[in-house]
């Protein structure tokens, strides 16, 4: 059990009378790269919102590293080592790129709400921030305001803020959406780099990204998990082909 990073058991989400997620059960071992795919409106982002407590869960258990986290606020889940990115870029537009990433490292390094430390003298925060900037390729842009970065740079920053705190379970919500082919290739390389040795759960539409990156794949259709398995199994699953992937799968 202790090797499970995430364990979802009978997770449901209802908005009024509409059921968005129904009895989602999923085990993700530590260190796995897990992709969640499915058609638009299948509930992928909602599932992320439940795991990260952005939305309250209607029923079921969500265990993070063996501990039930349903009902905890987002910041508690983050402090327990789960960090997420957002499908729509969610950064601090009027802070510099450097400050954006540093905001992601301060809590983990124990500075909390301190008003007695000088930021400029926090060597560990600076070094960790510089390391992340190096990883996401934004070292040259460190003093630029985040709000004026290009779209692809903002997506990279989004990932940078997410991983900065050193969480070992990383949720990425469509990190390559809206990117060109080459930008998307860079993003995949970046994701590989920064999630080395960590558990990665990722929602993704781009099949070449999914099949290139994932150890296992779950297919979510109409709020239910249709199948979970290694890429070759998913590719060969007739129900998956019929329900969702169809021809695009054989092409991918």
């Amino acid at each position: 059990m202790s090797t499970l990073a995430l364990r979802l058991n009978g997770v449901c989400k209802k908005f009024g009378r509409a059921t968005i997620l129904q009895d989602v059960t999923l085990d993700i071992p530590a260190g796995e790269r897990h992709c969640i795919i499915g058609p638009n409106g299948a509930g992928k982002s909602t599932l992320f919102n439940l795991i990260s407590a952005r939305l309250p869960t209607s029923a079921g258990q969500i265990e993070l590293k063996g501990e039930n986290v349903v009902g905890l606020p987002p910041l508690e889940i983050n402090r327990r080592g789960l960090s997420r990115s957002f499908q729509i870029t969610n950064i601090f537009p009027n802070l510099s790129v450097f400050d954006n990433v540093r905001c992601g490292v301060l809590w983990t390094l124990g500075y909390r709400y301190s008003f007695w430390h000088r930021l400029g003298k926090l060597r560990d925060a600076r070094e960790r921030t510089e390391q992340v900037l190096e990883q996401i390729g934004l070292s040259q842009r460190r003093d630029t305001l985040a709000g004026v970065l290009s779209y692809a740079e903002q997506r990279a920053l989004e990932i940078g803020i997410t991983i900065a705190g050193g969480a070992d379970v990383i949720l990425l919500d469509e990190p390559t959406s809206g990117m060109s082919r080459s930008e998307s290739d860079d993003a995949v390389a970046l994701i590989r780099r920064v999630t080395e040795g960590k558990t990665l759960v990722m929602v993704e539409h781009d099949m070449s990204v999914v099949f290139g990156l994932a150890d296992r794949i779950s297919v979510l259709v109409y709020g239910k998990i249709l199948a979970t398995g290694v890429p070759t199994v998913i590719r060969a699953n007739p129900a998956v082909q019929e329900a969702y992937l169809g021809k695009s799968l054989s092409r991918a």
Partner: protein
Amino acid sequence: MSAPSRMAGRTLLGPIVRGVSQAWAGWVAWAAVIVVVVAAPLFINKSFFLSLLCRIGLMTIFALSYNMLLGQTGLLSFGHAVYYGLGAFATMHVLNAVHGGIPITLLPLAGGAGALLFGVVFGYVTTRKAGTTFAMISLGLGEMVASSSLMFPHFFGGEGGISGNRVTGKGWFGINFGTQLQMYYLIAAWTAVCIAATWSLTQTPLGRMANAVRDNPERVEFVGYSPQWIRYLMVVLSGFFAGIAGGLTALQYEIVTAEVLSDYTSGIVILMAFVGGVGSFSGPIIGAVLITILQVAVASVTPAWPFYFGLFFLIMVLYAPGGIASIVAEHRAVWRAHLLSRLLPSYLLAALPVTLLVAGIIAMVEMAYATVNAVERGTAELHILGVPLDGAAALSWVEAAASIAAGLFLLSLAGKKVSQGWQDVSAVLRAVAVETGP
């Protein structure tokens, strides 16, 4: 990046020389300010000027404390007078209770501590929500506290307020703050301490996370922080500095009335922070200096000063939402790129229509006041800078209207030149940025 720094950047030592010279320029500027502040009374040792300078000091602290909320945490408060006023009352009560048991120099801390305690209680209520809700709650709380001043006359002294005497003895070396000059140096010292402290706060983890809450409170939750707790701490700390300003106010005037808690006081600090510029640390200082001087200067020549203040605020919000600090910063960038010469001709061109417009507006406002007051004064005639006007004469109104109309028409022409100049300049600045950029 500006042209001079580009040139400096060509040598290996460039960046270092540049960094040192900029830091050096900063220290020189601060040293100059300190010299001016210390030496000012030697040149204008009139009590009117000294008390004006004292008021500037108080308002600087108050405006800086306000900007900890608005500019740094994104909290629009309509009730900041609560902390300023309660700090003033707390200080006055402590002054009257201890009879010199606490040195006067430290007494503003009593105001800070009192306001901080109220912040601990009130902040818990106000910071539950951000945005419009926070603004509305702060307004309600401001009204509540202001109206309590009449409900609890024992604490607030009712209509007459409470007074005290800051001179509690002979003091060390004769410094007992009996004179305005000694009080001036006390306020100057506290202002310096508060500027340094509020600046330092912007350079701490809490200060930076407050900026993050301002930008995007939701994301803050997903990096492990509670936006609500950050808002709460900032309200409490901002209350502390507002309380120090209030405490100095109590010592300066030796009387505290309900006015310090009023919506007018809450309003004027918004005006100062906004006109100066909430986006930069120094903005509220500029605003406090300018608005306090205008308050005294304009109010001494015309009863219509609140009207002019409102108009000024309106124009700033519409045309310079970044405040004076951002106007200065933009022009400094242009100046460093040696491009100011491209803007100045259009500014000179705009000067005449602006003068016509302003003159016309002032004439109309003053004639309106003169007409209203004509019953008492017996005449509606007045002179503005030697120009005779008569609120009862149609011709004067036609002249004023013509001046406004001509001003507006010419300004619409000159305005095009100004915006062309700016487009021109910013295109060059962008090109330079691309050329020297990453």
